């Protein structure tokens, strides 16, 4: 059994790694120039190039992947020469990067060709001083300086030659002098809990993502706890009545619901309950992030939609497994031993019949997540699925990558749980 579990865990880790590579390269490499989307089609090539450099997009793809996964502060530290740390800005509550110069958190800034040292005070503000030195001569004989700027980048300035850079502000692109030559946008990396900045919202992805995940977990959790017992019950009921009218009714109905796309089911439910009967809100209106806790009826239609689609699938899997088990020689043995039917079903059949579907059901969780995307879009539910959808439409790559990794992690972890449950249920593996 140890072998089985360790194998599953190793395989899970490799899978996550592969997924992250696939995801990163598909989006970052495949999606073309993000600057077009953000700056619009009328931006000039220099504006684009400058903007891309500020996002670190001029680095090679593999470098960006590593940065994305495990961060780049350790890499930048070697250039800056000081440990890089984060400190919370008391005004915004967000994290900012600083160099730890002998215990003094420090940033730098170039103004009119002058390098200023900004020293962080305890209240979060900073005091500016003229920088005294630290310039180095590079191979080409230019004097350069590596430091941390005020926008959380590790940057390299060149003495006397402040670059012209285009900075995106709320008012649009603005040209600034005194810019650095090279940018390394500092990040801790996904594995260290920092998936980067959302281009859409301009805030760290982690901040915007967490409440969404919570909302989705509530929705999925409620749906799951309704679906599972009901579906298993219906599946077993159909399975032991194979070929009889009850089985036909359950089977065909579940097939019908499973084969109907979520958006069709959702729309029908809206029409029936929201418009014709007017008993439930047709559109979930989320006045606050906590709306679902204040008005649980908002959950009713989304949950019902998910249930309709998933219930049928699980019920059908269970039924198929139950039919197979009821047909097996050991059930025949139990019947020939004169065991009463209920005992045959409960003691002999169910445990074996649940073994096969449990892994498949757990595999199916990612289908459920797929369903969540659609359901959340239909009902405007502020969850993870809607977030992915919006990010995908916008091209907000940091956000999609993070959110997709979360969904994949959920899918893989549930699969792992399914494998473990199977191991525990199946004595052939447990006592191998």
């Amino acid at each position, binding site marked *: *059994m*140890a*072998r089985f579990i*360790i*194998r599953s865990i190793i395989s899970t880790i490799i899978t996550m790694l592969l997924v992250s590579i696939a995801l990163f390269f598909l989006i970052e490499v495949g999606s073309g120039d993000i600057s077009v989307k953000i700056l619009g089609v009328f931006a000039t090539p220099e504006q684009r190039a400058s903007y891309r450099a500020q996002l670190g997009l001029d680095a090679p793809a593999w470098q960006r992947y590593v940065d994305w996964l495990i961060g780049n502060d350790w890499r930048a530290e070697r250039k800056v020469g000081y440990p890089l740390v984060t400190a919370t800005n008391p005004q915004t509550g967000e994290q900012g990067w600083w160099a730890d110069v002998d215990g003094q958190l420090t940033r730098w800034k170039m103004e009119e060709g002058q390098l200023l040292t900004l020293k962080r005070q305890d209240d979060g503000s900073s005091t500016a001083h003229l920088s005294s030195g630290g310039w180095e001569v590079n191979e080409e004989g230019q004097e350069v300086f590596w430091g941390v700027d005020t926008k959380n980048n590790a940057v390299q300035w060149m003495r006397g030659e402040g670059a012209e850079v285009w900075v995106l502000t709320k008012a649009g692109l603005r040209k600034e002098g005194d810019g650095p030559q090279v940018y390394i946008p500092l990040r801790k990396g996904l594995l260290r809990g920092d998936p980067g900045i959302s281009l859409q919202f301009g805030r760290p992805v982690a901040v915007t993502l967490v409440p969404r995940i919570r909302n989705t977990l509530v929705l999925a959790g409620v749906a799951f706890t309704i679906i599972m017992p009901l579906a298993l019950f219906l599946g077993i009921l159909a399975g032991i009545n194979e*070929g009889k009218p009850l089985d036909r009714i359950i089977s065909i109905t579940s097939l019908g619901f499973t084969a109907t796309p979520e958006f069709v089911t959702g729309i029908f439910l809206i029409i029936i309950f929201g418009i014709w009967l007017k008993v439930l809100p047709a559109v979930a209106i989320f006045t606050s992030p906590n709306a679902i806790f204040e008005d649980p009826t908002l959950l009713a239609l989304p949950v019902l939609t998910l249930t309709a689609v998933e219930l049928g699938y699980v019920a059908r899997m269970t039924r198929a497994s139950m039919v197979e088990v009821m047909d*097996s*020689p*050991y059930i*025949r*043995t*139990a*019947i*020939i*031993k*004169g*065991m*009463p039917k209920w*005992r045959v079903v409960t*003691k*002999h059949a169910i*445990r*074996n019949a649940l*073994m096969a579907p449990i892994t498949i059901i757990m595999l199916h969780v990612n289908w459920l997540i797929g369903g969540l995307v659609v359901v959340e879009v239909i009902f405007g539910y502020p969850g993870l699925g809607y977030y992915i959808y919006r990010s995908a439409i916008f091209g907000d790559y940091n956000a999609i990558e993070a959110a997709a990794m979360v969904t994949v992690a959920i899918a893989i972890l549930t699969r792992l749980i399914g494998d473990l449950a199977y191991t525990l*249920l*199946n*004595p*052939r593996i447990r*006592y*191998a």
Partner: protein
Amino acid sequence: MSELVKAPPVLTLEDVAIAYKIRGGEIEAVQNVSFEINRGETHGIVGESGCGKSTVAWAIVNFLGANGYVKRGSIKFQGQELVGVTGEELRRLRGDQIAMVYQDPMQALNPSMRLGDQMSEVLTVHRGMEQKEAEARCIEMLERVYMPDAANVMRRYPHQISGGQQQRVVIATALLNNPALLIMDEPTTALDVTVEAAVLDLIAELRRDFDTAIMYITHNLGVVARVSTRVGVMYAGEMVERGTVEQIYEAPQHPYTQGLLRCVPKLGSDKVSSMLYPIRGRVPPPNNRPTGCIYGPRCDYVQDRCRNERPKLRQLPNGLWVRCHFAEDINPGEWTPSEDIAPPVVGIRDLNAEPILKVNNLKKYYEVKGTQLKDVLGLGEKRYVKAVEDASFKIPEGTTLGVVGESGCGKSTLIKTLIGLEDTTEGEARFLGFDITGPISERDQSLIQELQMVFQNPDSTMNPSYTVGQQIARPMQLFRTVPKAEIRAEVIKLLNSMRLGANYYDRLPRQLSGGEKQRVGIARALASHPDLVLCDEPVSALDVSVQAAILNLLLEIQQEFNTTMVFIAHDLSVVRFFSDQVAVMYLGQIMEIGPAEAIYTPPYHPYSEALLSAVPIPDPTVQQKHIRLEGSVPSAIDPPSGCRFHTRCPRRKLLPDDGQICVTDTPPWREAADGHRIFCHIPLETLRSFDPVISQEVS
């Protein structure tokens, strides 16, 4: 029947017909079956596959599935009519008064329930016994069936014990409520011969002690001869003959029974001095049975009356029941085979001919992965399954080497290694002078075509997607042995020599019977005219009448092409009949090798002796020495030290110190005669002094 009947029979079947509803009608799978079983009696039901013997068993317990039912007749159990009994009443009978044991015990036991729970529920449900008491009774019963460590077995799951032990558990469960009737459907078919022998002993013993009526269903004529007191022979859904076991085996009156007995080789008979006579034709399918005698189309004595009138089961003066119009007129002694089934006449093969295959100290080890944490991480010590250890033999051209041994003895691995499906771990193997220790991909095509194989399972030997012709033609195209234009003609020629007509060319495998598929498999192997054919249990999945035909066919081929063969089987009679040399394998090691006749008479290797003593022989007059092996076959991972057989050897105590040397030292090869070698510590003189295992009772 002159005997005074004291008690009414436990089970009486009268004129039972069982039908299955299918689309657009129904099929009578079983017709006119009548027999009775008394207390303390084992009634054998014997017949080839598809003759309806299991259907009768299922009908008794009323478990025919949704579409089957007893159409006519009555089934009485202790005077109570069973036909039509359903629901609670039926449930009370099942598992309490009537118990059942059937084939594959692994399948019959619930894989996810502890054995103790599966057993004790019979007592708690039927007898309302307390769990504690029930468990104690189960342990008692397990000990009664000689289950080692019974209390511990109660807590185990089915996959944790061996096949023979599983069957003991199933039998013990069946006996828990001391049933009046025990139905056994092929209970030993899935077991190895030495395990089978022990289980059969157990069944005989339990019948005496419990005074149970046993209905014993099997296809194996040898097994039925060993366990039964009376025997019914079934053919195509009818019982054609019924009598005491002696009557059936010594003086069968129905032509079918006579034919069956002519199909099986007697243990000790060989291809030179004896012949097998297959039964022509095939069993008619249930929806297409003749109106007259169902055996008519295959019968040598068929007359007009047989074609028009279905014979009734009638009793002859000697008490035998037979379903034949002319039973009294038939004298099996005067029977001569007709042209179409005449077996080939085979000469003695020359064991001194030039060897075509020489194998020297061949080893095949498989690496196994451990289950410990360190094994998964690759830190554990490497362990090996020693599937074949130091195999050495030579096969002279045109002769057959038979390899026998129980499952897991390495016989299949040996030929897989020879043909190149597995590569050799160590040792030497030369075929036609070429080294063949590498995998098949490293061999020259001209070498590949000289070394071909015939497989075991007729249902999987042919690719279901291609016609017979395409499959036989493929090797010809691949090896370019025949010009393209002539391939079809050549295939048909080959089909003809397999006694299959040209019309088989375009047939698909699903349109063929098992025997026909096996013939096509042989034709495919022969298509490239190989010098050496490796036969992996080519007849063990076939019914005896078909088996005889295939054996004859192989002999004919050998006679015609001087083909050399390696013949693997677990049936010792068949191997003896077919082979010139025999090798006996145990746990990867050849224990004894020599000319076929030498293996079957002393001096024996103790393992060969045990095997011979275990073989069920289809002749109740034969006396066999009673030697049973204890325990089960050890794992091939880290096999026993010294002699691999030492853990179970019944003869070890003949050596000083109870055979300590067998534990510590590898045995020497003892040359008993020219080419007859025995791998044993016991001196030849002692081995020679053993009595023969088999002796004929003088009748």
